[in-house]
């Protein structure tokens, strides 16, 4: 069933008070996504509020990354209205770790520190407070001992969690994760899923993640948005499962 429902419906699935959620972090109204003149997905209506854990499920090439890149301002929408409730610097973005070039000799801590670069001016030194924050987020993702390790020598799951830590360094209001659960073992999937749930519940973050594995998304997300064949809709089954 194709829907053009926005966050009111998504948040109703989470049975939260709409009055508390009147301020959307991201809102897309009748947006068409694409590259240049190529239309990828049309008629997108979506809003994301704090404290929501939303999964975006769809096969490879269906436009998941295009949607994320449009939300992040990396691609302009072909038509429609896109509004954001916070500055882009408060968006925590977790790319697919395979998209990063292993040529760079970076320690895990150096990768995590990058999340704070938006706050540090060019001539400033990295402050002790920021270093402390790096330790905190490493603790938060459960990998405090791996900061000194070369980033690209970590396992797929560890790399993914380090990138989540980097996104947390931004002090985000919303986190957008591109396929965080792909290419990692079952143990890592579980720990990443737990971490995402914890961040949503405890930090009141909005978390929007994608996966081509619908079953996995159903297990983790509170709400599921499906995307395929140029269309996007809310998966009602998941909404019905909500207590």
């Amino acid at each position, binding site marked *: 069933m194709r829907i053009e429902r926005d966050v009111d419906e998504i948040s109703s699935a989470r049975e939260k008070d709409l009055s508390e959620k009147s301020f959307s972090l991201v809102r897309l109204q009748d947006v068409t996504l694409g590259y240049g003149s190529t239309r990828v997905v049309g008629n997108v209506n979506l809003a994301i509020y704090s404290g929501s854990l939303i999964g975006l499920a769809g096969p490879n090439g269906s436009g998941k990354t295009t949607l994320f890149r449009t939300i992040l301002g990396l691609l302009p929408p072909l038509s429609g209205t896109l509004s954001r409730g916070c500055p882009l610097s408060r968006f925590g973005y977790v790319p697919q770790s395979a998209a990063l070039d292993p040529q760079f000799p970076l320690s895990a801590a150096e990768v995590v520190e*990058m999340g704070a670069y938006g706050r540090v001016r060019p001539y400033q030194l990295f402050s002790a407070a920021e270093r402390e924050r790096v330790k905190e987020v490493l603790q938060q993702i459960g990998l405090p001992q791996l900061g000194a390790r070369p980033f690209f020598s970590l396992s797929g799951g560890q790399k993914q969690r380090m990138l989540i830590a980097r996104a947390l360094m931004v002090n985000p209001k919303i986190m957008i994760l591109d396929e965080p659960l792909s290419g990692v073992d079952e143990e890592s999937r579980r720990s990443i899923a737990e971490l995402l749930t914890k961040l949503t519940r405890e930090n009141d973050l909005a978390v929007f993640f994608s996966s081509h594995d619908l079953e996995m998304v159903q297990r983790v997300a509170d709400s599921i948005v499906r995307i395929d064949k140029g269309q996007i809709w809310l998966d009602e089954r998941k909404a019905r499962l909500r207590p």
Partner: protein
Amino acid sequence: MSTLFEIVSPSYLLFPALVGTLMMGLVCPLIGSYLVLRRTVFLGLTLPEIAAAGVAFTFWLQQLGWLPQIGEGERGIAMIGSLTFTFIGMGLLGYLEQRSKGLAEGRLAAAYAFAGAVTILFMVFNPAGQIEVLNLLKGEVIALSKGELRLLTGVLGLVFVAMLIFRREFLLTSFDRDLAFLLKGRQVIWDVSLYLLAGLVIAFGVIMAGPLLIFGFLVLPALAAKPLVQRMISYLMLSSMLGLVMAFFGFYSSVRLDLPLGPTDVTLGCMLIFLAYGFRRVSPKTFVALTCVCVAIMVSACGTQAPGPSVPDAKTIHADQIWLAKVKNSTALPLLLPSNNPLRSLAEMAGKISPEDYRQSVMDLLRQNLQSELGKKGFQTSLTEEKDARFPPLPSDSTGAARIARDGKLSGIVFVSEIFRWEGETQKYVRALIDFKLIRIDDGAVIWQRRVQGAIPTPSATNLGQASTDAAGKIVRDLFAG
């Protein structure tokens, strides 16, 4: 022969060249590290070639009379060409990068080939300036003057400070462009800044050191450092340190062994890469031990080597009177100094007189200086042609020289000199290789000998003839010094 301690002394004539090389060794790898990490190493090869095309182009324009003489010597005009072409080339490559769907490597390779081809064509169009352009493109940093050193210090200092201040922005833009956009806004400004800094280093470096050396400094230390570090900050620091090592030991080897600086430095840089990948396979303890051994070998190889003995006194060798042979020229070049008499030059061009008839040669200069200095040492010198006008220049081979002298009915001791190399293509220095010997005519025994090899700086010379005159004087004075 220069020693390690001599070249690090500020009073050393080539000290500005050493400082310039060290600065390039320190700063270029910082830029090169990003070229390596961004997988745009080819840019480090193509831009110097484009800069070289700019140098050749501006010389051609000057030859046509469309450009005036700018700045000090030929480097002023070369710098304008180098800077202009580098930035135009970067702009075009950047534009094509944004617009074109072709391979980035393909564009760079085509630009490299095109720049190389037009450099040669511009030189062909400008035969009168070929030597100057070739000298500039060879990039003899050895000829760096103090004024040029100040300019280089300013440019490289600016680049160094900018690389330090904006290190986080350059890293973020290079590593994760999406995050850079979210945190710092439009990342294109950081791309442009990085490439502007690279363009500055390359445009100035090509003039001061030549395309080969600049490419070597940009890329080789960064490649050598890569397998040895696991953190970005360590990578940048080690790249710079290896650049300094490459610059210092390359310069020293070049001066000491009389080798061209560019190829010497680049060879050393490649050796550093092999060593780095070799060391990577060993344990940390073995790594430290091997590094210590390598440093010890390099330092011992740079140990003080005293210059050869000076010409002995007449009393020491118990001979008041010696024969001074004509200086033998084994270079296949006439080694004639430029004429300073316009009427005679016209007569020479008209074929009325032979250049040997009125133009002084390097051999004449050396012999005059030798005769004067031998007199100061207490020798009474006689010229071999005084005995027989047909006496040829004697070779430095003692047996052959003694035999010819005996055939010419000479006896006692003869002073022979043979020039194997004399290159005075620029007024800043002369590259020379000359053997000097005192030979006993009776048995061909060598009483004293000295080989002079290397670049002889001629900082006060204002033309090529003056450079040869100054160099000949310095060489002979050094033979008798001490």
